[in-house]
């Protein structure tokens, strides 16, 4: 059969109309023809203007007819946040799952405005953490407000007695044993300058009863971007002439 042209097809008495058979039939709507008030079992279309566009590249636009990505959501209105909202009433939390890595990127018009390139995290409606447009990580972890977190850039815990050995470390490539009670901490990745804060402690015993004086005094010096030097000595007797090895030595670098 060729074409039947009608103005209206009405199903009567609550019966259904079936278009197509069980094979590979295709129902086509010509370009320029608009379906209105469309409803199906899975879709309820009540839009008053175009809300979703699928372009010739199969990109989907919501709020835009020119999607740049497989899914583009655009909000041209002012004062309204652009939002993807996840609701789960089952009691379980919602999550976003990326199978091969996930990059969150915030950029205002190609790096033109860092103040509008923040990535912000909120809990219970309050800001809890932010990565600002200058790449500073800020969070509120009892600070009272979101503030820049100045992290430990390198740390090491080592035994300076006997055969000097590193127990554990972070961003430290090695310790140089220069002499008795004299060590250099070498960083894996250099710091930007030598204006960091180095915090060091030393003690005679890593576990067990402490021997008060031995190795309990330490000094940090020779700050450079690649390493820092530490001397451990006997407490209370002047470190210059009383250098001694310490079993428990810890150094942490902050900036």
């Amino acid at each position, binding site marked *: 059969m060729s074409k039947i042209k009608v103005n209206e097809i009405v199903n009567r008495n609550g019966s259904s109309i079936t278009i197509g058979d069980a094979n590979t039939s295709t129902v086509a709507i010509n370009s320029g023809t608009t379906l209105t008030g469309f409803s199906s079992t899975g879709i309820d279309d009540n839009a008053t203007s175009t809300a979703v566009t699928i372009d010739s590249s199969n990109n989907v636009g919501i709020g835009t007819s020119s999607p740049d990505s497989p899914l583009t959501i655009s909000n041209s209105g002012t004062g309204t946040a652009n939002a993807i909202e996840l609701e789960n009433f089952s009691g379980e939390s919602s999550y976003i799952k990326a199978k091969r890595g996930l990059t969150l990127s915030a950029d205002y018009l190609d790096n033109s405005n860092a103040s509008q390139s923040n990535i912000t995290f909120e809990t219970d409606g309050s800001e809890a953490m932010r990565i600002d447009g200058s790449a500073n990580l800020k969070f509120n972890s009892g600070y009272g407000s979101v503030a820049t977190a100045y992290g430990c850039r390198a740390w090491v815990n080592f035994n300076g007695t006997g*055969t000097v050995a590193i127990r554990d470390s972070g961003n430290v*490539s090695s310790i140089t044993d220069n*002499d008795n009670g004299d060590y250099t901490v070498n960083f*894996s990745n250099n710091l930007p300058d030598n204006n960091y804060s180095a915090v060091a402690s030393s003690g005679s015993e890593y576990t067990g009863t402490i021997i008060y004086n031995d190795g309990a005094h330490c000094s940090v010096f020779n700050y450079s971007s690649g390493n820092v030097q530490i001397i451990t000595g006997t407490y209370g007797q002047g470190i210059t002439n009383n250098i001694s090895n310490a079993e428990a030595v810890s150094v942490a670098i902050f900036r």
Partner: protein
Amino acid sequence: MDKRIIYKNTDGSIGIIIPADCGLTVEEIARKDVPTGLSYKIVDVSEVPSDREFRNAWTIDDSELTDGVGE
């Protein structure tokens, strides 16, 4: 690591580098952390004395520092 890197300073004192588990090989650490221009030797940790009483008397013959030069 069970390796140590030995080098001799220009004043004759000996530096012993204890590599950290940082993702670099001992050779990479040696090139990075041995002072520039100084020759070094990579040895097993068992070859380094554990008695440090005369630490400042430790020495090594230059001819043994054959594994590379600090960069």
